């Protein structure tokens, strides 16, 4: 499917969903970018995963970006059957208690990737069965990939 066909298939079910348009002069791939609200995310993921025409069965990666005013969680989906791609972006406004529903129940591969985002940026994934730090020690203070993270001086500083 082309990007326009994917968009119309999704919009037939979710009329409110908007494409993120490409800004002239900015670098971006030719994938379809969609902006999703955290409330709608889980249902939309179920739909794009199991709809036979879309069949996004492979979640390539999940990551997050700290934009100082808000967080953005990025999901990169690929269909191994149709070879088309889709990027979902979820904006998280609340910086003190950021929360997004987990999608590890749709794609188990999100399990550790969501744990890594929690570890590095402190975004909580609601419904994740085992949400704890993965790379850093359990008693680490703060979330290092946040832009306002101030490292604690150690004996090398």
């Amino acid at each position, binding site marked *: 499917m082309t990007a326009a066909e994917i968009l119309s298939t999704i919009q037939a079910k979710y009329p409110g969903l908007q494409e993120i348009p490409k800004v002239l002069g900015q*670098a971006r791939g030719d994938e379809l970018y969609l902006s999703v609200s955290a409330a709608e995310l889980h249902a939309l993921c179920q739909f794009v995963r199991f709809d036979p025409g879309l069949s996004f069965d492979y979640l*390539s990666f999940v*990551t997050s970006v700290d934009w100082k005013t808000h967080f953005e969680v990025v999901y*990169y989906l690929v269909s*191994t059957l149709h070879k088309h791609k889709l990027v979902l972006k979820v904006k998280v406004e609340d910086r003190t208690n950021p929360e997004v529903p987990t999608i590890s129940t749709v794609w188990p591969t999100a399990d*550790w990737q969501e744990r890594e985002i929690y570890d590095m940026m402190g975004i909580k994934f609601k419904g994740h069965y085992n949400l704890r730090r993965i790379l850093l020690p359990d008693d680490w203070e703060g979330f290092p*990939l946040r832009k306002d993270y101030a490292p604690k001086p150690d004996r090398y500083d």
Partner: protein
Amino acid sequence: MANETTVPTVAPEVFPQVAPEKGMFISLGPQHPSTHGVLRVAITTDGEIVTSAQPDLGYLHRATEKLAEKRTYPQIIVLTDRLDYLAAMTNNWSFCLAVEKMMAVAIPERADYLRIIVGELQRIASHCVFLGTYGIDIGAFTPFLVAFGRERERILDLFEEICGARLTYNYIRIGGVMADAPEGWEAKVRKFVKEMWGHLKEYDTLLTYNPIFMDRTQNIGKMSQEMAIAWGITGPNLRATGFKADVRKDDPYGLYSKISFDIPVGKQGDCWDRYWVRIQEMRESLKIIDQALDQMQPGDTMGKIAKTFRVPVGEGYAHLEAPRGDLGFYIVSDGTPSPYRMHIRPPSFVNLQILQVLLKGWKVSDVIAILGSIDIVLGEVDR
């Protein structure tokens, strides 16, 4: 939203379970020689049968993604060398692909062929390490001396000649490659490729069809196709389940579309299939190197790119088929000399997750056979 109950879901057995309280607890690692680095697996067993396994990682964490935010783009190539240290060439390449995609620069044809040659040589070298260390895991020491100590050394000699380094190359640069191949290098590669065909036959007699090795690996650690895709498994581990997927074919980069090669696939996704697919991949790599050497013409090896450059505002994702699977770099740029955010999609980290469900139900003696067959590099798992 339609009725939720009509929506199909993933089969429940693919989800892991947090460790049960009953049973014997075994801590495998972090300094266990068979974990190929520093990985700890917390295993609970009922008699000899594994009931749960929880990998514990982070011992090698070096905060690569955070470091990248303070460095310029060419400086980051050096950091990528240290991710999967057995396949530094493909790491360099993947990062450069992402930056080149954002900047929309053209690569000279010769540089693209040189990338293919070193990338495929790197795949052979990496699979040689797998072959050697997997043999040791199972109890065969000779393949290590042959594959790791002989063939891989020759590839490292070739790399040393082209870029001066044996492990962390920094050879593939944004816009091309660091330097052209020295005089006589292509002939040496051709000689190596010719001799490697014979060595591969030797591996088959040493390990592949060795009855003891086959007993230890066949029908062990089976992974279904559905399970592999749901867990995001890529590379030889996915192909061992019989699923034809390769970034070089599905989403071609560089000049792979001009080269003909097969994608070897396994039958049932057990440990032996995962091993066998890698051996076949070495054969395909040899074919690719031969064709690339035939097609390569003299010319420039570096595109027209300024010494100091800025990447346009925006974002980009590029990925390639590294020896361990789908390696990608997601870069967000704000127009400054360093990236605003860089995310690495590491194949080893994603592949390792499946250990939580894959080990369940197998005997303790099979744990090492299964862990070794997934072929992880901890430098990439922890980043």
